[in-house]
């Protein structure tokens, strides 16, 4: 028992790591590649199932063809998501062994549960993909449901860990070590979890909705606008259009939670150097170390948005030593990009909904389809920018206020080699994903000849 006490009093001590920044960038790269795929895990199975349900309900062969083609896309993206997700698991130990060694007992449970939802996802995606034409129609539809549920639960678990890193609880630190550990409370009793979770789910539907819509929107601009393309456009664009305005309000809620729990992050988002009563909100511009240059100021805007009170006091960066500031301009720029793109998506969404309600048809202007074509890739930019705000804004902490990122990093050498290798490999993976998606899109449609004649004629 005494030996046990000896060991547990010696967690992995901090080391000097010259390449801390490279380790962080390597982690950021791995997330940036993985997170768009997570969106497809959250939202895509549901959308495929909606289309399959339409087939079951109407017997219209078009929906079956569409659902099968989307299934192929889903299978390819899931395979890539499996590996990029596994890389993240490896990096927990390869890059941040001291973080995992000291706090694995607090946050690890979330990943252990996530492992099971990953299992369910992998098992049923195998059944769903290979079950087309081999199971009865109803049984096949049923095997898709666990994929949708598992995709949601898995991301729930991962986000609960991230929320814990941003707003840690469920343990006490004694002599630099986590004691009195209550993982369930740490992960699920966290007030910071819910806005983050909802914000990410809605983002999943936004990204998948607008990305799919952008593909078929470009089809229309190129003159391919048969019944198949119209259907494949209308379903995701409707999802994206409904989610976009919701995301604006959810984002506003997230901002208020950040203001309350992570005031320094909020100060970095705004570039607020000094604690201010009735602080202004700045759009665009550049933080020069003491304030915003060249920005457009909205007086008292920040106090209003963050605290719903024009005279609220907003804590500035000066509440912590300068060495503990996050990289303000990175956080700020990414925040502005996310909000700007999110607003654009909301405008596109509302426009679409108004046309649908007023005129009972899709918009006809080519400009609408151009906007949607751009909105798809932009939604991924917004997604990644949002995560940069969360994660870079959390620095210099890996466990907010408790463990510094520099204390978490590995003592192993060779980070630049690993970073360079992963950069090359992931560049190859991105090229491969684009290639496979184009190949899948180029495969001829297997629409039956009895499909409505006029639209077939229109297609070619």
């Amino acid at each position: 028992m005494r030996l046990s006490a000896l060991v547990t009093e010696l967690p992995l001590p901090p080391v000097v790591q010259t390449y801390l920044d490279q380790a962080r960038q390597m982690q950021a790269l791995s997330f940036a590649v993985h997170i768009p795929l997570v969106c497809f895990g959250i939202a895509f199975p549901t959308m495929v199932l909606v289309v399959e349900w339409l087939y079951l309900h109407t017997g219209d062969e078009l929906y079956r063809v569409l659902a099968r083609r989307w299934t192929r896309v889903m299978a390819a993206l899931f395979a890539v998501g499996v590996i990029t997700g596994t890389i993240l698991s490896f990096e927990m130990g390869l890059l941040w062994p001291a973080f995992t060694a000291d706090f694995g007992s607090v946050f690890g449970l979330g990943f252990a549960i996530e492992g099971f939802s990953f299992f369910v996802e992998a098992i049923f995606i195998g059944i769903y993909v290979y079950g087309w034409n081999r199971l009865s129609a109803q049984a096949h539809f049923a095997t898709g449901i666990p994929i949708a549920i598992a995709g949601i639960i898995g991301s729930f678990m991962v986000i609960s860990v991230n929320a814990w890193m941003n707003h840690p609880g469920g343990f006490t630190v004694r002599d630099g070590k986590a004691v009195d550990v209550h993982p369930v409370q740490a992960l699920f009793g966290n007030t910071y979890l819910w806005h983050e979770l909802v914000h990410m789910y809605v983002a999943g539907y936004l990204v998948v909705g607008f990305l799919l819509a952008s593909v078929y929107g470009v089809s229309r601009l190129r003159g391919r606008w048969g019944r198949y393309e119209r259907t494949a456009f209308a379903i995701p664009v409707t999802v994206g259009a409904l989610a976009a305005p919701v995301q604006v309000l959810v984002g506003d809620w997230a901002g208020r939670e950040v203001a309350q729990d992570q005031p320094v992050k909020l100060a970095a988002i705004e570039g607020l150097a000094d604690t201010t009563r009735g602080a202004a909100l700045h759009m665009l511009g550049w933080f020069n170390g003491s304030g915003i240059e060249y920005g457009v100021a909205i007086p008292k805007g920040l106090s209003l948005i963050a605290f719903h009170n024009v005279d609220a006091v907003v804590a500035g960066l000066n509440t912590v030593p300068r060495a503990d500031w996050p990289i303000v301009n990175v956080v700020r720029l990414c925040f502005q990009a996310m909000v700007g793109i999110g607003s654009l998506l909301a405008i596109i969404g509302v426009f679409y909904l108004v046309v649908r309600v007023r005129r009972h048809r899709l918009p006809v202007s080519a400009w609408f389809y151009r906007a949607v074509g751009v909105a798809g890739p932009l939604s991924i930019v917004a997604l990644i920018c949002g995560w940069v705000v969360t994660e870079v804004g959390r620095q210099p902490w890996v466990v907010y206020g408790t463990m510094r990122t520099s204390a978490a990093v590995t003592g192993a050498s060779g980070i630049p080699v690993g970073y360079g290798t992963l950069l090359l490999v992931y560049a190859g993976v991105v090229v491969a994903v684009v290639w496979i998606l184009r190949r899948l899109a180029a495969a001829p449609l297997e629409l039956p000849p009895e499909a409505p004649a006029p639209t077939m004629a229109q297609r070619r």
Partner: protein
Amino acid sequence: MQFDGVPLDFILIGLVLYTVLAGADFGAGLWQLLAGRGPTAERVRDHAHHAIAPVWEANHVWLVFVLTVTWTAYPIAFGSIASTLSVPLFIAAIGIIFRGASYALQAGVSGPHERRVVENVFALSSILTPFALGAAVGGIASARVPVGNAAGNLWSSWLNPTSNLVGVLAVALSAFLAAVYLCADAHRLGEPDLERSFRRRALVSGMVTGALAIAGLAVLRADAPVLGHRLIAGPGLPAIVVSVLAGLGTLLLVWRRRYGEARVSAALAVAAIVVGWALAQRPNILPGLTVQQAAAPTDTLIGVVVAVLAGAVILFPSLALLFSFVLGGRFDPDRATGAGVPIGRGRRVSGNRGFAGRVAAALAIAGTGLLTVASAEWAHALGVACFAGFVVAGFHAAAPAEVVAADTDGPSGR
């Protein structure tokens, strides 16, 4: 306390299943590489591809399971292992990327040249990954990973006789398992020539692997005497005996063309090796670090045990379903039966769109009030629920699929 070791048992089960399931998927890649050229080789490669396609992702998840349970229940051990063995683990990770990416690419290749490139990447990474993971295991087994952040030697921890042995053995065991399983699959599919060729592979690789394992004991005695001794003369012995018997039994069963039983006994032979290592190494996880010392606080261990047991209730029936489809031949290439008949052929999706639209609008207004104006947590929760309802009702009201299906570009009078 006995409880400290329970998650370790889960980890061991996960490791065994990863070895006998994902191991066979790695082995299938090896046989693809060794198939050579020509039409027969194409059939061998196709056969291996079809056999693993529906299951490889699920089999791969066992690795993620092992990682997550290890870092939750034995965080100090995990941090020490991952930092000292970062090189082989990174190599394994790169191998995993190539494997998954090339698998995804196989769905879109056309023409023999593209196919060959993608398949070779897949096959090479199928050798690289088990070797690197085996080398990492060899480093742990030969006590070359001390407690601490990268406290061991980054190179000699996995470039040593034991690591080389375990790495090569991992590749050989994978090939053996794959040959036996693929032989059984070929038998089920009624492909006598594929069955013959994989039967030969199973017998040869079985003998080679057995010889390697026996030679390996000599390597262990020299390089990791403590483990070697405990494996041959100590607690590991029963497992080694089981492995030898099951291995010989597999050869006999394959020889007599009883592939169903051979599948099980091959898995048993391989599983017993992993279990033998665990038995020989207990109670230490790392030098000077017992299972008890490495274990996380009690609340965490309880959480892990509850999560794993609850997960198992969902997991094993799901796995049983998948494997019953695969092994029952349901997913075989010639079993496609055409589209099933949908329930409501010819029915229209109908409903009161106008009402759904008004509900959506009402929910949007209520959601805005609850989420944005109100500040209580319950109000926020209700607000989020309202918005979820808004999206569902809004989608129903917009009925995107039907609207565009019904008309071309002109206004529609739905």
